[in-house]
C-alpha cells in the first residue's frame, strides 16, 4: 500500500485487465478504502443511472459490486445506492425494468427509490445561514433529497461516455443528477434571442453544477473509462462505438478527477466549459499542477476518444434535412438527442417520414420544400414568422381556376426553450400519425404497459 498524505487532491490512473482489478489497485495507491470510509459510516453510492437500459448507459454493476464489497470490509453501517435518471424516467420504473432493488437487496444494499420514499428537504429545515450565504445555493440545497445530505460519505461511480456539451460525462455532471429531473432542467420563457446570442443555456447549467458541487462533495470519485462510448453518446445510439481503454481513474476530489480524466482521454481542458468556469470561480484545484497524479503516465496513454458530432448535419438521419441558423447549446443538445434517438429507435419510421425539414435556431435558411416543416424551439418559431413557407398557393374553383394563398398546414412546432425530448416525440407522433410511425407507436405502447406515468410524478 502506498502511503499517501497530501493536501493536494489525489488521483490515480490505473491500468488493468478488469475494472475491478483497476479499482483495487487504485484504492491501494490512495491508501486503501479505510482512508475514505470509516467504521459505522452510512454511505451513499451515486451511480450513473441514465436510462432503464444496459451498460454503458448506466454504471458497470460488477464495478459497483466491488465497491460494495470494499465498503463492507470497512464495516460500514449502511449502504444506499441510487440516482435520478437523465430523462423523464422515474427511479421506480428503471428499477422495474432492470430489477436493481432485488439484486442489491441480495447484496445487503438498499436501492433507493428517490422519487417515492425520500422526500425533499422541506423549506423550513434549519440551514446554517453562514454556510450558505447565497440565496440561489440555499434554494438548490433544498432541492437535494434529504437522504443524500444526511449520509456520512458519498462515493461517486461515474460511467464515462462521450457527451455533446462537456466532451465527456464528467463526475460533476453525474453529481448533478442527485437533483430530481424537474430541478435539473433549465428552461427559459422570454428573451430567446439574447439567450441564443449569449449561449445562456450552458452558462446557467455550468453555474448550477458548480453551485451544487459547493454543497455536496463526494468522498471518493471513480471515473470509469475502462469501456467508454465514443462518436455518439452518452446514451447508446446507433452511431456509438464502445471503446475498451482498460483504464480506471480514481480520486478523492471530483474536479481533480475530471481534469485528469479529460487529459487522459486526449481532450483540451482549456476548452471545457465546466473546467473553465471552475477556474474562473477559483474552485480548487485551480490548475493541473495542483493535482497529485499517480499510476499511468498521461502523456503515454493515447486514449483519444472520438468526440460527438459538433454539427447536427453530421448525424444524418434519413429524410430529415437540418436547416440551422444561430442556435445555443440548449437547442443543440436537445436536437442532438432527438435526432440520435430517432436514428436509433425509429429506423423504419424514418423511411416513412418522407421529406422533413428541421429548422433550428435564429434565422435558419428557408427550406425549398414546403411540406413537413418542423420548427424546433422558441427561437426558430419566432425567427421564421415571416418566412414564405407559412403560406402555400392553392388552386380553387371548378370552372374559373384561381390561385390563392392559404396557411401551410404542413408545419409543426415544438415549443420550449429548449424543447423537451418527450414533447418533441409527442409532436412528431401527433403530426405523422401512428400509421406512419409503427416503431414509435410500439414504443409508446411499451411505455404504457410499464405504467411509467404511475411512477412519474
Amino acid at each position: 500500500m502506498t502511503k499517501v498524505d497530501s493536501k493536494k487532491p489525489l488521483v490515480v490512473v490505473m491500468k488493468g485487465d478488469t475494472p475491478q482489478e483497476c479499482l483495487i489497485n487504485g484504492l491501494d495507491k490512495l491508501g486503501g478504502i479505510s482512508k475514505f470510509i470509516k467504521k459505522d459510516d452510512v454511505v451513499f453510492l451515486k451511480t450513473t443511472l441514465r436510462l432503464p437500459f444496459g451498460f454503458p448507459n448506466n454504471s458497470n454493476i460488477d464495478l459497483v459490486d466491488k465497491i460494495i464489497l470494499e465498503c463492507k470490509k470497512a464495516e460500514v453501517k449502511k449502504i444506499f445506492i441510487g440516482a435520478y435518471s437523465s430523462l423523464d424516467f422515474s427511479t421506480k420504473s428503471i428499477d422495474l425494468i432492470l430489477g436493481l432493488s432485488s439484486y442489491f437487496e441480495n447484496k445487503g444494499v438498499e436501492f433507493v427509490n428517490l422519487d417515492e420514499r425520500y422526500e425533499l428537504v422541506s423549506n423550513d429545515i434549519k440551514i446554517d445561514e453562514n454556510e450558505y450565504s447565497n440565496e440561489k445555493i440555499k434554494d438548490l440545497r433544498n432541492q437535494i433529497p434529504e437522504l443524500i445530505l444526511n449520509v456520512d460519505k458519498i462515493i461517486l461511480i461515474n460511467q464515462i461516455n462521450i457527451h455533446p456539451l462537456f466532451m465527456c460525462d464528467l463526475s460533476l455532471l453525474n453529481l448533478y443528477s442527485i437533483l430530481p429531473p424537474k430541478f435539473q432542467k433549465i428552461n427559459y420563457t422570454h428573451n430567446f434571442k439574447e439567450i441564443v446570442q449569449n449561449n445562456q443555456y450552458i452558462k446557467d447549467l455550468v453555474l448550477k453544477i458548480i453551485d451544487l458541487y459547493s454543497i455536496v462533495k463526494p468522498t471518493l470519485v471513480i471515473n470509469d473509462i475502462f469501456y467508454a462510448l465514443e462518436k455518439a453518446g452518452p446514451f447508446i445510439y446507433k452511431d456509438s462505438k464502445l471503446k475498451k481503454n482498460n483504464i480506471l481513474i480514481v480520486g478523492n476530489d471530483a474536479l481533480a478527477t475530471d481534469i485528469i480524466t479529460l487529459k487522459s482521454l486526449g481532450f483540451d481542458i482549456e476548452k471545457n466549459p465546466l473546467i473553465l468556469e471552475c477556474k474562473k470561480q477559483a474552485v480548487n484545484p485551480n490548475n493541473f499542477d495542483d493535482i497529485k497524479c499517480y499510476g499511468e503516465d498521461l502523456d503515454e496513454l493515447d486514449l483519444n476518444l472520438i468526440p460527438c458530432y459538433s454539427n447536427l448535419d453530421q448525424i444524418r438521419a434519413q429524410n430529415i434535412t437540418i436547416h440551422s441558423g444561430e442556435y445555443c447549446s440548449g437547442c443543440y443538445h436537445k436536437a442532438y438527442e432527438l435526432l440520435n434517438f430517432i436514428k436509433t429507435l425509429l429506423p423504419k419510421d424514418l423511411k416513412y417520414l418522407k421529406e422533413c425539414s428541421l429548422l433550428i435556431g435564429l434565422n435558419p435558411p428557408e427550406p425549398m420544400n414546403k411540406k413537413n416543416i418542423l420548427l424546433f424551439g422558441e427561437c426558430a418559431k419566432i425567427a421564421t414568422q415571416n418566412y414564405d413557407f407559412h403560406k402555400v398557393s392553392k388552386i380553387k374553383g371548378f370552372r374559373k381556376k384561381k390561385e390563392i394563398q392559404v396557411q401551410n398546414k404542413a408545419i409543426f412546432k415544438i415549443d420550449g426553450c429548449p424543447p423537451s425530448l418527450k414533447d418533441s416525440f409527442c409532436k412528431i407522433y401527433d403530426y405523422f400519425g401512428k400509421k406512419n410511425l409503427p416503431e414509435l407507436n410500439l414504443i409508446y405502447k411499451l411505455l404504457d404497459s410499464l405504467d411509467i406515468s404511475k411512477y412519474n410524478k
Partner: protein
Amino acid sequence: MINEKFLNNWLKILNYNNKINESLEIDEITEKITIPFTPIDVNALLIYNFFKYLYPEIINDQQNVLDIIISNDKEKILDTILYETKEPGVPISYEKLNTNIIKSRKFSTENLEESFFNVQKRVLKKKELRISHIRIFKEEFIEILNKYLKKSDDLSFHEFFISLLEIIDKSIREKLFFISPKPNLLSFLEDFLQFFNNFHLSTIFELLFRNISKDNYVIIFYSRAFSFIVKLNIKSTKKVKNCIKIFNPRDLEIEFDKLDKHEILKKVNMKFKNNLIYLIEQGQILRILNELFEFEFPIQKEKLNLFLQKLLFQFRSFQSNWYRHPPPKMYRAFYRFLIRLLGFNYNLKKISHWAIPELLYKSDLIFGMNSKIVLILYNLNPEKDPEKKNNVVILLETENNAVTNIYYPSIDTLEEKNTKISIKTIRNELSTEYGYINIVIKIDKFLIDLIIQNFIFKFTKFQLFSKLKTIRAIKNEKYLSMYPEMPIYKFIKKSNSLKIFKTILPILIDKHEF
C-alpha cells in the same frame, strides 16, 4: 482400410468422371452409383456435376488433390492417394503413392500450411503434378466411417442425417481430419463447434426436423449450368434410399433449358403429383452459404445484421429467387386484399428485410453492449416426452455487441409452481459466480417449437388462429417467464393478442399499396 463397397463405388465414380471428361456421349451414361457417404443412388452424370459445380464452390477450386491417411498418434503416414483432376473438383484417377513421398519430419498436422507446401513440392518433383490441396484423415476417422457405412443402407431418413452429423461433429471436435488450405466451410464448422461447445449439429437438425411439416417435398435446385431435383418423403420411416431420391432433369425427360421456371414447376408437378414443389436458385443458396462460412467467431452484430438482411431478402424474393407449386395463397392479391380488409397487412413480398435485423440494435439498448443473459430451455411436460427431461441452462456473455463467451451453469431444480421467485433466485445465485446477470429468461421447448412452426416454417400461411395461439403461449408464464421483465414482455402479457399482432406487424412488413 476403407470399406470395400465404398471403395468400389468410389472407383466407379472416378471411372465415370474420366469417361465424361473424355467427352463420351453423356446420354450413354445411365448407370446408377451411390453418392459417397450416403446410401443414395443417383445417375453417374449427376455425381460428376456435383463435383464439377459444387466442390470448387465449397472446398477448393484448383486442380489435383492428395489424400493422406495418418496413424492416430500422427507419427506415421499410412497411405497416400493421388487424385488427378482435369477439371477443378472432378477426380478422374486414383493412384496410391509410396508413403515415402512424404518426409515425416517435414510433415505435421500442427503446421499444416508448411506441411502442405513441402508435400506439394515433393509431389511436383516425383510425379510432375501440382496438387492444389491435401486432405488428411486419421486412422480413427476411417474406422468411424467404416462403422457408419456398414449400417448406412438400413438407416431411416432421420437416423441417416443424425449419424452423418454426429460423424462430422466428432471428426471436427476431435480433429480427425484436416484440409489444407483450409476451406471456409471447415473453418466455420471448427469455430462454430468450439464456440458452442455443448451444442451438437444433430441437435439443430433435431429441432428443425421436429417442426418441419411432414409433407412430401420436391425441391428443384436450379442453375443454368446444372440443375437437379430432390424428392423428399420425410414422413416415411423407410430406408433413406426410399425417402430421398435425386434426379437429373433428363431422368424425368424435362429439358430445363427450353422452359421458364413456371413451366418447369408445372412439368415437374405432372411427374410428382401431391407434392409441394419448390424451385430454388442454386446460386443464391451458395452465395448465402459462402457468406455464412466467412463468419468469424465471436460474430459481430453488424455482420450478423447484414447476413440476416440478405437471408430475409431471399425469403421475400418469391418468384424471383424461389418458386413454389402450388403458389402459397398469401401471394395472391385477392387473398391479401381480404386479409387487409380485416386490418392485417400480411404481404410477404414486403417482409421488412432491412428493418427486422435492426431490432438487434435495440437489444443493445435493453441489455447493453456488455451483458450477461441466462436462457433456461425448459421442458414442462417431461412425462409426455421422457427423452427430453433435461433442462438446458445457457449463459451468454456479450462484449461490445458480440457474444464472446457461452457458459453452461448448473442450477438447482426450477420450482414449477413459483417460477417467478425461482428465476429471481437463480439470477442472484448466478450473479455471485458470474457477475451481474442482466436477465434470466426461462422458455419452454413447447413454445420454441410453436414459434418455429408458426412463424418460420409456416410463414407463407396467414393462419391467424395458430399465430394467436403462439402469442397466447408467450403470455403464459408456464411457457415463458423472465426476471426482470422486459418492456416488450410486459406489453405482450398485458395486451390482447390481436392488438399485439396488429402493433408488431407493421414493423415486420413494409407498407404496400394495392
